[in-house]
């Protein structure tokens, strides 16, 4: 498969602050590629540069063979964008919104009308198409927001955290929509800070933190970076000191890493069950009350933890 997106050393600086620091990756035609990272990692800034909204400080990217810096108008024809924040005219109906945005992409007349019907069907709002967006639920608004990005049948769809702040049912619907679009051949660049979404949707994942791409590959490739390890997570009482427990656990045999997030201590180990008794014993010695214990197989969360020493939600 050829690359529809090729990013080379993209940098965005605001004065002394570097929001994106020389990231390089590509996306093959037909892929779902997720940029996974915590809030403020640089995901939206990266997407804004790729969608030609921000001019990069340095570096470049080609989309469908067009440079984002040299030929942004051609790039705009190739991409569809679903921004993180709702970008709709709330006084207009869903249908009126879709017609307006379709016109902005050069659609008109009967082709526009039938395309609007298709998109309304696709986002499941045909029945509510004549209602003003203002009257919609958050999830319905999100669906219209996605619909606008699909109107001109883009080859590459950028979706910037489209499930933030919505109910589980709408979230499920959006994830299913992404899968459907991909099955229809659309390439998707999806940003999220939800590890589960990246795991469910992505062919490949780029992990971004502090403006840098710290890991890139398929889920299998990424989890192999952690090795054949498991993560033992201890939830401790709020009154206890997790740092003290983590430090004491580092002395134990087979504890590769022990990190603290809020009132959780995450222990990376080759076999969680083997060290469980020793861990509980250490906690008892220090008078620390363990509320619950989780054992997790290697996943993207573990990769992020392994690479940064922090949880994704930090």
């Amino acid at each position, binding site marked *: 498969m050829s690359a529809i997106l090729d990013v080379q050393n993209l940098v965005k600086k605001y004065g002394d602050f570097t929001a994106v620091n020389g990231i390089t990756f590509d996306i093959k035609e037909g892929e779902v590629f997720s940029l996974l990272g915590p809030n403020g990692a640089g995901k939206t800034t990266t997407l804004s540069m790729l969608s030609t909204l921000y001019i990069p400080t340095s570096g470049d990217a080609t989309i469908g063979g067009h440079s984002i810096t040299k030929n942004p108008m051609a790039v705009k024809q190739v991409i569809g964008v679903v921004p993180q924040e709702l970008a*709709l005219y709330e006084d207009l109906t869903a249908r009126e919104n879709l017609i307006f945005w379709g016109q902005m992409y050069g659609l008109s007349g009967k082709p526009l009308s039938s395309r609007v019907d298709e998109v309304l069907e696709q986002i499941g709002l045909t029945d509510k198409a004549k209602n003003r967006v203002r009257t919609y639920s958050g999830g319905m608004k999100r669906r219209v927001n996605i619909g606008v990005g699909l109107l001109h049948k883009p080859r590459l769809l950028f979706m910037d955290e489209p499930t933030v702040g919505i109910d589980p049912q709408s979230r499920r619907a959006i994830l299913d929509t992404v899968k459907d679009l991909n099955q229809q051949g659309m390439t998707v660049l999806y940003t999220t800070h939800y590890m589960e979404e990246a795991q469910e949707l992505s062919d490949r994942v780029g992990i971004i933190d502090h403006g840098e791409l710290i890991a890139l590959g398929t889920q299998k490739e990424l989890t192999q970076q952690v090795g054949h390890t498991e993560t033992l997570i201890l939830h401790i009482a709020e009154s206890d000191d997790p740092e003290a427990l983590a430090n004491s656990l580092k002395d134990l045999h087979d504890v590769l890493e022990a990190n603290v997030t809020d009132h959780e201590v995450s222990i990376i180990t080759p076999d969680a069950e083997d060290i469980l008794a020793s861990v509980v014993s250490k906690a008892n010695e220090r008078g620390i009350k363990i509320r619950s214990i989780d054992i997790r197989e290697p996943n993207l969360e573990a990769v992020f933890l392994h690479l940064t020493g922090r949880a994704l939600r930090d």
Partner: protein
Amino acid sequence: MFRDRAALTFMLLAPFLLTIGMGFVTGRFSGGSSGLSDIPVIIVNLDHEQLGDALADTFSSQELADLMEPSASSDPAAARRLIDEDQAAAVVIIPEGFTRSIIPAEGTLFDPNYVEPEPVKIEVYANPSRPTSAGVVKAIVDEFVSRLEEGRTSGMTSITQLTLSGLLDPQQVESEARQLFDNVGQSESPAITLKKNQEGAAAVEFDILAYMAPGMALMFLMYTVSYGGRSILAERSQGTLPRLLISPTSTSQVLGGKVLGIFFMGLAQVGILILASSIFFGVQWGDAIGLVVLILAAVFGATGWGMLITALSRTPGQVANVGSAIMLIFGILGGSFINLEQMPAAIRIFSKITPNAWGLDGFTTLALGGTLPSLMEPIAALLIMGALLFGIAVFVFNRNGIMQK
């Protein structure tokens, strides 16, 4: 915005109602005065003959007693200096030989050696900072000259007809003609009237509503353009502006579309107000071509201000607040409430930053019979103002990153 009924009502109805209100206050609907009074005018009568005296007397006639405050001078240069010092609205200089240029001296009418004198011109030296008053003075002089010419032409035609038909003896012609000329300068009907037309006389009328209606229209135009500019920031905060910029539309197209939207909104507002005041109040706006060009220029100038206010603001709320304040300040400064001629010279100079002042200048000129060529100064000023402000607004937009990527 066109779904915002409150804003639409405010933009269209408020100026209309205010115009009506001010019309009542100033007596427009009860036959009261025009609002202009005691216009200081200096008459320099170098003619000292029949017609020169008649013109000078016109300014001190009973009919114009409230409107005019004439004073006499014999020195044109000194009188012009007084205008330059803003001591009066205009000087009317009646040149020597004015009467003789129209009425030949006795015994010369059929003299074969009679040489027709060179035509002379009455000069109206106008004070540019008092365009309304100067316009009224000029209109009075124009009307006098027009009546003079009308009387002379019709009289000469009658005498010629009577002579050709044998009803008038050639020996009687000179005496009849002389009597006719004598009557030309002594018309019984007043040359100038205010407010109401005299039947059978094309009187000059300065309708106060022709000043107030554009005054209100221009003031609320400032509201409209700032409200329109507000939509740029509103679109930014609701996320639709970035989405527009991501679509295959250039930044200049997006900004240009917004500006055009504001421009046409302003145009519609002023157009509707002018149409409504013509239909309901019979306001005479003057030369149609001049009116259209002036409206376009005034809306363009105001749009420049709207864009600058938007560029300097951070939020839609700020635009609304600053826009409302500017609307009122410009309304006062620009003469929408009080005729600028009644304000101190410093304010009159400062008023030139407002589209209201230039626009009113133009509308007044139109109402006093001016046409497109006489509107060049306000139109040029409004166009330059609009272009300059638009340039500054684009610079500020870019600096603040509102449209910048």
